[in-house]
C-alpha cells in the first residue's frame, strides 16, 4: 500500500498553528520567569534557610522531581477545584509548569551557590556588605554564570514540555495540532509539521540564550 502525503490541508490551516505556537511561547516565557524566581527563592531556602524552611524546600524539590508533570497538571486542573480553587486551563497550565520548573531550577541554582567558595562570602561580609548585598553581588551573579548552560537547557526542555498541557485543552501548539488532526484526518502530516515547529522554536531559544549569555557575561 502506498500512502500519498497531503500537506495541503495542514498548510491551509497554518495560521491556527502559528496562533498555537504564540501561546506556547507565551506560556514558556511566563513559566521561565516564575520558575527562575521560585528557583532563586528555593535555593536560598535550601542553602541558608532555617531548618524547617530547608526541610520544606527539600521536600518540594523531591516531590516534584519524582512525579510526572502530567500528574501534577491533573492535580492542579482537576484536583484543586474540589478544594474550591477553580483555575482556567491556561492559568492551571502556568501554575503547574511554574511549580515543576521551580523545583528543577532550585536544584540547579543551589548547585551554583555551592560552587561559590565560603571564603568569598566571608570576604564580602568582612568588607562590610550586608547579607543581601553579599547574596546579590558575590553569590547570585557568579552562581548564575556557572549554572547558565544547565539552566538554559532546562528552560528549553520546559518549552518542549509545555506540549503536555494540551491534555487539559490549553489552546497551545500541540492542542491546536490535535484539533487540526481531528478536522483534517491528516494525522501524520499534522504532527510532523508540528514537530518541525517545535524544533524551530527550540533552535530559536538556543540562539536567544547564547545571545543572552554573550551579552550578560561579557568581560
Amino acid at each position, binding site marked *: 500500500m502506498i500512502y500519498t502525503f497531503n500537506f495541503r490541508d495542514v498548510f491551509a490551516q497554518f495560521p491556527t498553528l502559528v496562533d498555537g505556537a504564540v501561546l506556547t511561547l507565551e506560556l514558556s516565557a511566563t513559566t521561565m520567569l516564575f520558575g527562575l524566581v521560585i528557583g532563586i527563592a528555593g535555593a536560598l531556602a535550601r542553602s541558608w534557610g532555617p531548618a524547617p524552611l530547608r526541610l520544606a524546600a527539600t521536600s518540594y524539590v523531591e516531590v516534584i522531581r519524582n*512525579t510526572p508533570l502530567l500528574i501534577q497538571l491533573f492535580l492542579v486542573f482537576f484536583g484543586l477545584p474540589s478544594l474550591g480553587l477553580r483555575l482556567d486551563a491556561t492559568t492551571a497550565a502556568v501554575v503547574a509548569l511554574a511549580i515543576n520548573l521551580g523545583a528543577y531550577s532550585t536544584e540547579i541554582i543551589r548547585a551554583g551557590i555551592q560552587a561559590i567558595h565560603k571564603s568569598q562570602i566571608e570576604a564580602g561580609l568582612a568588607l562590610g556588605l550586608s547579607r543581601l548585598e553579599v547574596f546579590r553581588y558575590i553569590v547570585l551573579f557568579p552562581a548564575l554564570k556557572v549554572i547558565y548552560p544547565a539552566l538554559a537547557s532546562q528552560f528549553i526542555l520546559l518549552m518542549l514540555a509545555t506540549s503536555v498541557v494540551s491534555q487539559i485543552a490549553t489552546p497551545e501548539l500541540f492542542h491546536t495540532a490535535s484539533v487540526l488532526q481531528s478536522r483534517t484526518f491528516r494525522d501524520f502530516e499534522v504532527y510532523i509539521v508540528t514537530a518541525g515547529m517545535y524544533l524551530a522554536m527550540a533552535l530559536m531559544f538556543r540562539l536567544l540564550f547564547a545571545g543572552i549569555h554573550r551579552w550578560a557575561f561579557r568581560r
Partner: protein
Amino acid sequence: MIREVNSLDLLYLVAAGRWTLALTAMAFVGGGILGLAIMMLRIAPLKPVNWLAVGWIQAIQGTPLLAQIFVFFFGFAIFGYKVSPWVAAGVAFSIYASAFLAEIWRGCVEAVPRQQWEASAALGLSFPQQLRYVVLPQALRVAIPPTVGFLVQLIKNTSLASTIGFIELTREGQITTGATFRPLTVYGIVAVLYFLICFPLSQWSQHLERRLNVAR
C-alpha cells in the same frame, strides 16, 4: 453511577504500575542498544557519520516527546501497519531514550583522558578495540549515576503514553477518576505511586554520584 474510591481501585492502580515499569524496561533496553550505537557514531573518527548522529540527537532533543509518540503512532498506520499502543509507545520511547542516553554516554566517554585513547592506539588497537577494551570500561563507572538519573526521567515520561491509550499508571488513574469523580484522591494516589518508584532511584543515583566524587 458515581461510586466511591475503594481499596479495589488502589489495587488496580498498583497493578497498572506494572505496565509503567514494563514500558520503562522496554524503552531502556531498546534505547540503550540504539543509544550505544548512536554514541559510537557520534564519536567515531569520521565526520559525515558524526553529523548523522548529531542530527539524530538534535532532532529528538528538540521536539516534544508527545509529538514523537503521535508521529510514531500515526506513522506506522500510513505504511499500512496497524500497530498496538504497545509497539508505538515502545518504539517512540526507545528512540527518545536513545538520543538522551547517547549524549549522556558521550559525556562519560569524553571524561576518559585523551591519553588513554592515544596509548591504546599506540599499542595497535583499532577504534572499536580501543572503545571496547580501554575506554568503555573506564567510562562505565562515570556513566552509572547519570544513567540511573535518566531512568527516573523515563519512568515519569511513560505517563505520556496514556495519550495514545496505553494503559499504565496514569491512564488507569484517568479511568478511575472517570468512574469515581474523585480526581484529587485518585491523582494523589497515582502521584504517591510514581514517587515510591522514582524516589529510591533518585536517591540511589545521588548516592552513586557522591561515592564517585569521593573516589576521585
